């Protein structure tokens, strides 16, 4: 597609439920990143996929968080047993193989009540 697409744009869930967030990167971009942003703050790195290499999961805050990328394209970030501190905007970005700049999606605003 023309840009990075994320869905849903907003998600309200009850504490303890599992959620799945989806990211559809720009076609042909080999790198895909997930970041988390708390209100008005900078971005916290979560996980990075590059082609067929093993993902860099060093930013995942706990084992309740996981992500996969199928066929080198669409990615899903899963949060199990959500907690209130998981409330944030989850941003996905992609970049081409030799590019330095990211193209971000509009994010998924997650609210855990």
């Amino acid at each position, binding site marked *: 597609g023309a840009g990075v697409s994320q869905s849903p744009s907003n998600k309200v869930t009850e504490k303890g439920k599992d959620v799945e967030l989806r990211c559809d990167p720009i076609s042909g971009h080999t790198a895909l990143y997930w*970041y988390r942003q708390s209100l*008005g703050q*900078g*971005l916290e790195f979560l996980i990075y996929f590059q082609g067929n290499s093993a993902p860099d999961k060093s930013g995942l805050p706990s084992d309740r968080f996981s992500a996969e990328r199928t066929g080198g394209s669409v990615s899903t970030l899963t949060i199990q047993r959500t907690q209130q501190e998981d409330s944030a905007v989850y941003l996905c970005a992609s970049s081409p193989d030799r590019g330095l*700049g*990211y193209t971000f999606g509009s994010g998924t605003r997650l609210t855990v009540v």
Partner: protein
Amino acid sequence: TQLLEQSPQFLSIQEGENLTVYCNSSSVFSSLQWYRQEPGEGPVLLVTVVTGGEVKKLKRLTFQFGDARKDSSLHITAAQPGDTGLYLCAAGRGSARQLTFGSGTQLTVLP
């Protein structure tokens, strides 16, 4: 540990004024980028700088990468209300592709 410090955190100015925001670190970076983010949207890349001392201009915006590649500044001339947004610097280290982001400068330009 916050590797990138941005200042000021908040800035409110009148239309037509000039301003500078700063991004500093004790670490050396291989590249540095500036993004602007509007409410409800993802950050949008403004510029990438990779060479120490490099200066890039984008209309009324001037970006500078420090000689030692540890700091950067963004200068806006004659600010306009459309410049309002959260300005984020982001840095890469070595061969790593993932970026470290600063906490941002929230700029408000009043008409």
